[in-house]
């Protein structure tokens, strides 16, 4: 028995706990509530959600791919800076991003004042849909950027030269070779963006744009029907699972791994005007996605620092960092395990397990958190009962409120985030590479260390970075599973924003951004020294 065959199903089993709760809800009758939702709510939110997902997917694909391609392949002023600067928006939580941009571009914001001074007219305000979509694009494009950059770096310049030697212009080569070869990376990045968009509540709430997720919360919080909320989540998950399966099917037998190591990198040298065009694009994105919102946070934070600052912030920051680092390690290791399982036991059970284990990312955070908590609590009760039966009078078992459970819940949510870059790394390890290594007499462990790891380390570091930053920003799971005293920067933001104290929340928000910058900069350092 190949032990790898067991790895994926075991991981999936743990990660699927909240999914069991979600799909279990299908058997709870919610007739009247469903009729209401189906009549008055679902048509509009489905339309809105499909629109939002499409716009955000296309937008992040454009912004992320273009900025990745420019920084990876083209020489232009400031390229070295933008390589890592373009990742920075990752560190800004979506809910913070939305309220900061709303602050800048809202009616009473500085952008609006400036516009009024210049034109004498009020700044045109976008509808909730357009505003949500722009915020999500600016906040989420780094997922595509990071993965696309990996792709363009590994495929090297040779793919473009192939196209040119076959009579295609550089532009045509980009479309017909560089992009298609980057497809698994782009698909992985966009998949993350789509799942994040589907699960987003923070942004659409700020702009009051109704989506499937707001409908889930409305059913739960407004109609007091958790079963209906879970059933809506089940529909959402089925749609996502279908999309994942379709993509795999569509990819078919084609492969994307480069045949060999790529030629040494020499970047394209475009004309001067093209160089400044590239600079302008990156600068604009960076300004909108990072400088302006973070600048706004900084102003607010300074204005409210006196009220809001307190020594407890060190404790918040410590908790945030510990949780984020531990989660990054755990989740990345699990994702690597899944990757190896997929490679060494490419059975249908493995593939299904992988899909199941990574679905949690599309669930609204609170739903996943509650589902996970319910199962863990149930397990705790069962364990207590068992202990009581075995030795009456013994202390009961409490699983809830432990860090282990908290980290597992993070894993259930963020496994997809770690798995995407890692699986793209595995795509680069061609089967012949394994055979070649075995032919040289390398043992399994040696193959892992000498052959796989060097090819996987880039994707693994990206995965760890994404999980770290995501956990820094994570709210619903942290809120429900944290042990007493484990308040984080994110929960502090929650305390303030639930009371509408947006501007006071700028200080913890800024702290989250700064803490999130550290690993981004670390990754950058590795990138240039390695």
């Amino acid at each position, binding site marked *: 028995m190949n032990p790898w065959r067991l790895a994926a199903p075991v991981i999936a089993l743990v990660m699927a706990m909240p999914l069991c709760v979600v799909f279990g809800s299908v058997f709870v009758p919610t007739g009247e509530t469903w009729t209401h939702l189906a009549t008055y709510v679902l048509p509009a939110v489905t339309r809105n959600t499909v629109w939002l997902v499409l716009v955000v997917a296309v937008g992040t694909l454009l912004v992320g791919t273009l900025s990745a391609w420019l920084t990876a392949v083209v020489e232009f002023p400031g390229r070295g800076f933008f390589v890592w600067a373009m990742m920075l928006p990752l560190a800004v939580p979506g809910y913070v991003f939305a309220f900061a941009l709303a602050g800048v571009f809202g009616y009473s914001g500085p952008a609006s004042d400036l516009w009024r001074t210049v034109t004498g007219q009020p700044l045109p305000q976008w509808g909730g849909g357009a505003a949500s979509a722009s915020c999500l694009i600016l906040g989420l494009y780094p997922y595509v950027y990071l993965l696309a950059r990996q792709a363009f770096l590994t495929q090297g310049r040779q793919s473009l030269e192939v196209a040119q030697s076959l009579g295609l212009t550089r532009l045509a080569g980009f479309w017909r070779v560089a992009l298609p070869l980057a497809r698994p990376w782009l698909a992985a990045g966009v998949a993350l963006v789509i799942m994040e968009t589907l699960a987003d509540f923070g942004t659409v709430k700020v702009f009051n744009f109704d989506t499937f997720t707001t409908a889930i919360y409305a059913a739960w919080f407004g109609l007091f029907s958790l079963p209906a909320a879970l059933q809506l989540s089940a529909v959402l998950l089925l749609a996502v699972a279908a999309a994942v399966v379709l993509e795999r099917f569509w990819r078919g037998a084609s492969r994307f791994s480069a045949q060999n190591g790529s030629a040494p990198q020499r970047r394209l040298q475009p004309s001067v005007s093209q160089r400044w065009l590239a600079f302008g694009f990156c600068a604009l994105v960076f300004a909108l996605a990072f400088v302006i919102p973070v600048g706004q946070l900084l102003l607010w934070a300074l204005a409210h620092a006196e009220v809001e600052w307190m020594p407890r912030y060190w404790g918040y920051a410590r908790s945030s960092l510990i949780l984020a680092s531990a989660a990054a390690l755990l989740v990345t290791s699990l994702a690597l395990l899944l990757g190896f399982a997929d490679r060494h036991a490419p059975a249908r059970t493995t593939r299904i397990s992988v899909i199941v284990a990574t679905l949690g990312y599309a669930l609204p955070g609170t739903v996943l958190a509650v589902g996970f908590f*319910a199962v863990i609590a149930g397990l705790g009760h069962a364990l207590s009962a068992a202990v009581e039966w075995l030795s009456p009078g013994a202390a009961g078992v409490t699983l809830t409120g432990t860090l282990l459970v908290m980290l597992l819940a993070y894993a259930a949510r963020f496994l997809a985030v770690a798995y995407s870059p890692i699986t793209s790394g595995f795509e680069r390890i061609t089967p012949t590479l394994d055979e070649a290594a075995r032919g040289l007499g390398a043992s399994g462990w040696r193959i892992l260390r000498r052959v796989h790891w060097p090819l996987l380390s880039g994707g693994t570091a990206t995965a760890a970075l994404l999980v770290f930053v995501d956990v820094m920003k994570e709210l619903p799971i942290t809120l429900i599973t944290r042990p007493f005293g484990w*308040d984080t920067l994110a929960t502090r933001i929650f305390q303030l924003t639930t009371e509408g104290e947006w501007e006071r929340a700028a200080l913890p928000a800024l702290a989250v951004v700064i803490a999130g910058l550290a690993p981004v900069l670390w990754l950058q350092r590795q990138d240039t020294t390695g």
Partner: protein
Amino acid sequence: MIRLNNFGVLSLVGLLCAGLVACGGNDGPAAPAADTSDGTSVTEAAAPAQPVVVYSSRAEQLIQPIFTAFTEETGIAVEYITDSAQPLIERIKAEADTTPASVLLTVDAGVLWYAAEQGILQPMASDIVSAAVPQQYRDPDGLWTGLSLRARTIVYDTRKVSADELVGYADLADSRWAGKLCLRTSKKVYNQSLVATMIASMGEEKTEEIVRGWVANLAQPEFSNDTKLIEAIEDGRCQVGIVNSYYFGRLQRDNELSAALFWQPAELGGVHVNVSGAGITANAPNVAGATALLEWLAGPAGQELFAGLNLEFPVLGDVPNDPIVAAWGEFAASEQPLIDAGRLQADAVKLMARAGYN
């Protein structure tokens, strides 16, 4: 590309596993709670009694000073976690008889009603509470009690509208307010409670007519929060709206406002109020401490802090209001039992969806 040292990664993974086992072993309520704002714990010196664990959906900055004062006065320590109300209720349900929570502290009558419905609260046997808190702000079976009142009332632009033109909530559906009304999203529980009490007092049909009138009068798409709504009135984009008074108070604290509050008179039913409140959990491990906490909160000291911290109104009539709040003048609060707001909340949500109120 990145090359992590293999050994380094392995040892980190090992450390992590070891750490998890250590942390997972015993992580009961060990951390000090109810810290004072300078980070020192007040619970260690004077806490011989078992601490009271509170699950709160009221934000930390609004409860932590109160708990500190309570502990100083009674010597009973308080530990708490905060989250949104529904996840907390689900958590208590899931934990069942192992829950550490003795008190559920939350905002909105609808949530309190739902918690009671879910069977996670037990009746409190306290004459002090029932004597102090008026009946319409309590659960008939004593499962929960209101602790502060939040008034949801009309705000208007004094530059364009005079108080004489204003009548009440229902009147805002009149066509003379067409293009002048601003509302917050119907997804906020405050609006759900308002509409639920309207259903209770005038029936579903009439209420729906009014809500449709509101929607027809909207000057702008629904706002995501009350503060933005008040700012829109300051900005001249709307002339009237409905907000919770304390949001107005907070803005008033730092700004000179052209907007003002209007209170619907008693003969039309008075001002819609909601409560923040608390109940003792069904499996509370510390009923005595929980009761002591609730009684203290319903008493004069607790009331002053509880309402004052957030510019709310105390449930005890005779506790002095904050000066900002006092300047708004007297108003007649609706005497409708708040339990209606909970009972009819789901109906209100459906009604608003039907009426196109987003």
